[in-house]
């Protein structure tokens, strides 16, 4: 059976390179969002505003899942 993984592993090196780069850029974006969530959660907590910390934690967790999920699309090693 052919799937995304297989098709991608057969891709041209240039395409593999672009894909890898794109995935890394998206991951960095997700982490930037997480940093922002951590920062606002922390500031609101220190301001005795408890409503932000929990939603920020949940959102941060889902961003983490997305970050790991992206690994599936990472092109394979050089054969």
């Amino acid at each position, binding site marked *: 059976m052919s799937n995304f993984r297989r098709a991608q592993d057969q891709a041209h090196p240039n395409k593999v390179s672009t894909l890898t780069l794109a995935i890394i850029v998206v991951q960095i974006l997700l982490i930037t969002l997480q940093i922002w969530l951590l920062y606002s*959660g922390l500031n609101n907590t220190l301001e005795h505003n408890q409503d932000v910390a929990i939603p920020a934690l949940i959102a941060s967790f889902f961003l983490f899942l997305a970050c790991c999920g992206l690994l599936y699309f990472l092109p394979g090693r050089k054969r």
Partner: protein
Amino acid sequence: METKQYPQPPDWQRDFPYRQEEARLVTRREFSRMLCLISAAMVTGSGYVAIRSFWKGKSEPAGRFPVCGVSELPAGGTRSFLLPGSNTPYILIHLENGQFKAYEQKCTHLSCAVFYKAGTGKIECPCHNGWFDANTGEVVQGPPPRPLPALEVVVESGQVYVNGPA
């Protein structure tokens, strides 16, 4: 003059390859996995913040504490003080309009000591040029993200008292 011949490209050239096919040998896979680790660290940090927001470790001092006599502090003057059982520095300010205000003497940016700038009604943080309103503690200018935490001040029979933060 003879130039030195390298058996293979020097290290720095292998670290920064010129052609893209060579760049493929640098394992971006590992970099990507490391990003996932950083992401997990962010979740851990957020989790820690969430736990700390609902669970207070050590209690803060509660009750009323005398600081000084009204006559000891002229208008525009300030006095630093500590509350018993806590290491947080506080600053008592006698504003020019006669009011007394007490704030944490710790900038909300990176915890530098803040000072009242007499005559301006503003509190200055010299570290990164942050300014707070001495009347309310609100940020006027600069990098501090939060207002200065204030203590309630009570003036009774010639004596200035503050109420603990708890």
